[in-house]
Structures are given as C-alpha cells and as structure tokens.
C-alpha cells in the first residue's frame, strides 16, 4: 500500500504563465509557488514583470496562457478583480491611498465595513466588538495613539501603515504590497519591516521592493524576476552570489 502523502499547501501557484502586450512579452513562462503563511520578497530590475505579475494575480490583467491558482483549487484566471478581492487577496499600491478627511479610526472602520452595502456603512453603529477590532489593527500598525487624527495629517510613512491596516481590516489571506518603503525615512522604513515581519504566518505576504537595506531586513525567501520570468530564488545571500543576478543588475549585455 502506498502511504498517502499530504500535498504541500500552496496559497498561490502560477504555472507557465505568459502575457504579451503589443508584441512585448511582459510575462514569459512564469512559474511561481508560495506556501501558506510565507513572507516572500520579489525583486528585479525595471520591466522585469513585477507589476504585471501582480496584475495577473489580482485579475486586473488576464494571462494569455498558463495556470493561476489560489489556495487549494481556485482558478483565478476565471474571476474578475472584485471577486478575487473578495476571496481574500488584498493589494497595496506604492502610493498611499487613504481617506484624508476622515480620522485614522474611521479609515479602518470604513474598511471593516467594506463588504457591506452603502446603506449599512452609512448608518451602522460602531459596536464594542468592532471598536476592539479596530484598535487591535491600529496597535498592529502602530497608529493607536493617532486614532482621532485626520489621515491627511499623517506622515507619508504613517499613511502607508494606515493603508496596510485598512487591508488587514479585510482580513486577507494573501497580501500583495508594492514598494512599501519607498520615500520613507530610515526609521519609518525599519518600522515597516518590523510590521511586515509581525504579520508573517498570520497572512501570506508578497512584498515587491527595490530598497535592498529593507529587503535584507525582511527577506526570507527572495524571488528575482527578470524579463518576465523567475531568474532565481533563495535567501538574500544566495541571490546575491548568483552570477546571473549580478549580470542583470550591472546591466551586462551578452556580446553577440
């Protein structure tokens, strides 16, 4: 008798994905697996396909071919953007997008309310349970002392944390975060790293990042994308020592 082995539980799986825009191959035979609860960092030069990859996962762009699966067996290529978001895939773009005329508390509250209709969002009360949940999230993103501050008055870094809090309010299974440390002060950058590390395990997280100091702080497994496909994967040290990665980053061309 053959022992039944438990297959590894991937939160996200892309297999042989391709996407061409007007003759430009943005994604080329891309295969990518990610474990549940993993914190994964994706790096790569401009035009490596990082954003297109995120667009494909979130349903903003449909691949020309290939498999894109979420959890055990959900085919993401069949779903539109809102449906994919409702499955529990949250995306944070590079620039902060918060409601600047609402308080920090209200921003999180509105995100908790996110799945309800307009009517209940407008008129529902903040129950004690919800209040606790909101403060729990605010503590996680280190903004509990700023609950009554208008979001517009926050620093750039704090706005980024608030938006991460707003995503957390939707309790996502998979979080996609694009260059969270861009434009932050050194101290804010470090705190952002600590925040993401604190979320590891509770959520599966993909971070796209250029800032290598920040990458070294948060990196577990690093994926290097280049020309729309995975160039290599491993620890920071492993990818750092990879000759192909060096060539790509130093712009070395192959002499023809």
């Amino acid at each position, binding site marked *: 008798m053959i022992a039944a082995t438990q297959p590894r539980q991937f939160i996200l799986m892309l297999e042989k994905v391709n996407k061409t825009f007007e003759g430009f191959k943005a994604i080329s035979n891309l295969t990518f697996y990610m474990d549940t609860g993993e914190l994964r960092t994706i790096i790569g030069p401009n035009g490596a396909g990082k954003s297109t990859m995120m667009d494909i996962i979130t349903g903003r762009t449909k691949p020309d071919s290939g498999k894109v699966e979420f959890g055990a067996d959900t085919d993401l290529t069949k779903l539109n953007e809102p449906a994919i978001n409702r499955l529990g895939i949250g995306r944070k773009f590079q620039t902060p997008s918060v409601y600047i005329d609402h308080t920090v508390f209200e921003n999180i509250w509105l995100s908790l309310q996110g799945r309800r209709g307009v009517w209940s969002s407008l008129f529902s009360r903040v129950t004690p349970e919800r209040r606790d949940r909101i403060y729990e999230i605010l503590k996680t993103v280190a903004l509990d002392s700023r609950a009554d501050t208008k979001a517009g008055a926050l620093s750039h870094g704090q706005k980024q944390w608030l938006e991460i809090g707003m995503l957390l309010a939707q309790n996502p299974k998979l979080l996609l975060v694009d260059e969270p440390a861009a434009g932050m002060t050194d101290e804010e950058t470090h705190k952002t790293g600590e925040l993401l590390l604190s979320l590891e395990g509770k959520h599966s997280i993909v971070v796209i990042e250029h800032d290598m100091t920040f990458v070294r702080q948060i990196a577990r497994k690093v994926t290097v994308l280049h020309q729309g496909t995975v160039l290599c994967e491993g620890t920071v040290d492993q990818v750092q020592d990879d000759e192909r990665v060096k060539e790509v980053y*130093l*712009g*070395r061309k192959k002499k023809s």
Partner: protein
Amino acid sequence: MLTLSNISVSYDGSLILRDVSLEVPANSLVCLMGRNGVGKTTTLKSIMGMAKTDAGSVKLGDADLSSMRPDERARSGLGYVPQGRDIFPHLTVWENLKVSLVVHGAKQKGPLERVLELFPVLKEMLQRKGGVLSGGQQQQLAIARALLTDPKILILDEPTEGIQPNIIDLIGDTLVKIKKEGKISILLVEQYLDFCLGVGDRFYIMDRGAIVAQGPIAELNDEIVKKHLTV
C-alpha cells in the same frame, strides 16, 4: 562646471531626493549610478527644472539656474537626452535635428555637419521618420539633437538601455570623443557598470535618494558595487 548643492525633492511627503550634492567638473565625464528607483532620473529632472525641488541649488559655472524654467536652462547650456530618448517619431531625422537648430537660433551649417560626422548613420537616414529608426539609431539622433543646442553639459539618461552591444560601443566612443574635444562635459546616468568603467572619469552612486559613494572611476571597487549596485 555644473554644481548641484543640497537638492531635496519630495512628493506628497514621500522623500525622493535627500540632500543631493554633486559636481560635474570641466572636461569630465561623470557617471551617476544606482539601482532602480533610487532617484537618478529625478536628479536629472531637478537639474533641468522638471522636478520641483524643496531645497538646494543648481549652478552652471557661476550662473544660478535654480529659479529658471526648463527651456531657459536648456538655452543656458544644458543638453538633456531623457530616458526613452523622446525623439519626434513623426518628424524626419532632418526635422528632428532642425528643431534644435531653430530653438537655438543657429544659422550656420558647421554644427550640423559636425554631428553628422559623429553619427554617420544619421546622414543616410535624414529623410526617414524618426519613429522607424532602430533604438540605437534613435539614441544617436537624440544625442545629436542635444548637441545641436550647443550645450556646455550633455546630460544622458541610460543611453545604453535596450541597445545592441556594437552600438553601445559606438556611443561610448563618441561620448569620450566629445568630451576630449574639451568644450562639453558629460553627466551620464547609467546602470551598465562596464560601460561606466569604460567611459567615465568620476562616479557618484545613489541609494534611497541620497549620494552614498563617489570618487574617481578607478576607485569604484567590488565592495561598493556589491553594496550599492548588485542586490
């Protein structure tokens, strides 16, 4: 020659450039290097007056350009070849070149003959539309166009990007030649390390919006490369 002092740029509270100072001495080719998104292009744009600066100054010789518009800076002697080249695709090569001559008010034929001598391929292509040229030809056209504005400083943003190796060599040789003629200094933003090592006199490296290393190109060692250029 060109001096940037303590330039800071931010956008919506997000810090893009942090106290950037750099200098392009006369008769030199200076390479500004760094990974993606560290502020190289924004530095060039703040030189050209195309990025709003919070603080700092840009000087060309003794002239303070800081409060000038981009076109005034161009007329003062800054020739800028942006990333992606921005040639006019529906104008012919000749018309693309003429735009510079018109802007600068130059009537004489000498400068035109000189750039066609530097980039002979353009001479064969004068009647073609800019848009049908190859990437390498477009890059040469963009550099030629900038030279026709009679700049004191030629500023180039990633001229080797997406260009085949033999054309890269040609562009490198031409830049060195232009510099050696002694009238034009060059500021080059580039990620292609070997190209910089081949043509550059001095380097600056940026990381997170700040200058983190600088010196003669011979001092660009493996340790600096590993820390700030590779991952």
